[in-house]
């Protein structure tokens, strides 16, 4: 039968993992070797302080063994090989960039040492200051999770109400239109007065931004659900409540997720801003505080941690999204 020809494919057929070799899988190794050679062979600039810090070297040695191991593993493992082959040039490039940074700072000192410390100096901060940084990560994470959770729940409730009920739409929607676009940092003075602690204020500011995004995209997602879905489900016996929870919300979930993504991205901004105003801990506070102390190695180290922190959270979110929204046709990959 012609229609059966177009059967669905469950998964991509797995490649046979025949040992094979791809050129670009060795680019990371080459990159690390260049970086390592530069670090070891070229002497540091005479005026460089802390010239003997070994952390960057250690890092490169670890990177070398890791890339070599990856390279060997990829000979036997097909899917890893393809991935590494694709990413290889980029990874190699990253190490060349580090080499460049190493040259202009530690080796030739083309930039002022105070503001542009050597890589080794920055890396050493992770060890010297590890305790404080970990507390900061924990503190930031707590604020973020609390803020996002509160904002998400409030946003879902408002979004569903506005999207589902005409009455709620009439009363709440104008309010959202007026309050929502105000950047959450504008609320800082008020938040600091209303909330007894700076942390409370920070949570409020994060939650506020999240609430707005989730509300808007949940409401518009629900409002744009195809009417035919409700008609069919009603004739299958669904009542209003079931139409809401079994049709409207699942159908709107891509839009809700988009709202959640926007929300988490803006919540990072809100978090950093909030921590710089009154908190005595957190990554934003750490970076700001170290800047006022003129310890730029710590500032950079802090920024690296912030970047990794945000990256992990965003990646985690995509993983969840891909799982929950895999039913979408031609899902947009981020």
């Amino acid at each position, binding site marked *: 039968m*012609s*229609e*059966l020809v*177009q059967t*669905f*494919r*469950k998964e991509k057929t797995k490649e046979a993992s025949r040992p094979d070799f791809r050129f670009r899988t060795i680019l990371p190794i080459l990159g690390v070797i260049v970086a390592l050679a530069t670090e070891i062979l070229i002497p540091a600039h005479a005026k460089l302080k802390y010239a003997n810090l070994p952390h960057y070297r250690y890092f490169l040695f670890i990177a070398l063994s890791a890339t070599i191991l990856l390279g060997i593993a990829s000979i036997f493992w097909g899917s890893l090989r393809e991935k590494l082959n694709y990413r290889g040039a980029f990874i190699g490039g990253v190490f060349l960039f580090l080499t460049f940074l190493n040259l202009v700072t530690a080796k030739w000192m083309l930039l002022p040492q105070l503001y542009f410390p050597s890589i080794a100096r920055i890396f050493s901060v992770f060890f010297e200051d590890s305790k404080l940084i970990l507390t900061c990560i924990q503190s930031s994470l707590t604020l973020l999770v609390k803020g996002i959770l509160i904002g998400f729940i409030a946003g879902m409730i408002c979004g569903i109400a506005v999207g589902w009920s005409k009455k709620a739409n009439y009363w709440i929607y104008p309010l959202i239109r007026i309050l929502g676009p105000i950047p959450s940092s504008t609320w800082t003075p008020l938040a600091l007065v209303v909330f007894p602690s700076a942390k409370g204020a920070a949570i409020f500011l994060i939650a506020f931004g999240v609430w707005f995004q989730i509300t808007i995209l949940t409401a518009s997602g629900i409002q744009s659900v*195809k009417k*035919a*879905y409700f*008609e*069919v*489900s*009603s*004739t*299958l*016996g*669904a*009542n209003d409540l*079931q139409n809401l929870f*079994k*049709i409207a919300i*699942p*159908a709107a*979930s891509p839009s809700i997720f988009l709202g959640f993504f926007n929300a988490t991205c803006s919540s990072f901004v809100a978090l950093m801003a909030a921590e710089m105003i009154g908190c005595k801990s957190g990554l934003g506070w750490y970076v700001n505080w170290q800047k006022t102390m003129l310890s730029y190695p710590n500032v950079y180290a802090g920024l690296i941690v912030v970047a990794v922190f945000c990256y992990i959270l965003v990646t985690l979110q995509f993983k969840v999204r891909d799982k929950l929204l895999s*039913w*979408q*046709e031609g899902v947009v990959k981020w």
Partner: protein
Amino acid sequence: MVKELTTGAITAKNVRKEFLDPNGNQVIALEKVDVDIKPGEFICLIGPSGCGKSTFLRLVAGLIQPTEGNLYLDGEEIKKPSYERGLVFQDPTLFPWLNIYENIAFGLKTRHIFKENKEDVKEFIKLVKLEGFEKALPHHLSGGMAQRAGLARALVNHPKVLLLDEPFGALDAFTRMNMQDELLRIWKERGTTMIMVTHDVDEAVYLSDRIFVMTPRPAKIESIVNVDIGRNATYGRKRDSGDFLQLRSKILQILDYTGKAAADIEYNI
């Protein structure tokens, strides 16, 4: 084995439906509908677009209320949608976030009778020949398969009446003919009253006991044609018999399509 059919009678008493168009003007979507549909009857609605076919189905489904008049299922007034009156559109409208099995089980689950009727789901998946596709997502299916899944989803509820709005309109001719036979088989097996909208005269003659021929402006049922042609082994009708062709041209005549088309052809030859 002929089942005694006692449920699934639809009565429309002097039904009229008006809408307001975007400019606020009254549009009469349907008027003067006075019909009795017997339990287990197969009815086709045919007519050019805008003559109120979908409006009639929506009224029977309970998705909209008549402006005047009343509709009844087995003597009980139709006030809101119910699983007793299943609905299938041209676009199968499967829920894309559910797989085929979950789509078909949807009605039983919303009615909280899924656990005791799991076997039914299996049976209907078999009936529409979708075994092996339970875990597939709707967008993995071809048009015909998706439409069969939509049918199974409505049928698993054991509706008394199945409302079909141009269900095979988007399918290619061969798939459509296969689906027609499958629908007839289900109809015979289950004794469900079928009310189907089509714009295909052949389809109407092939399938139905009676054909409601509808005309627009004013949108109403112009005439009701009895299809007194014997059914064959697959419960359809011989498509090339004289009776078939005669009835076909009679309907085209009511719709006022034969005259013009035939005259044009004669001239051109």
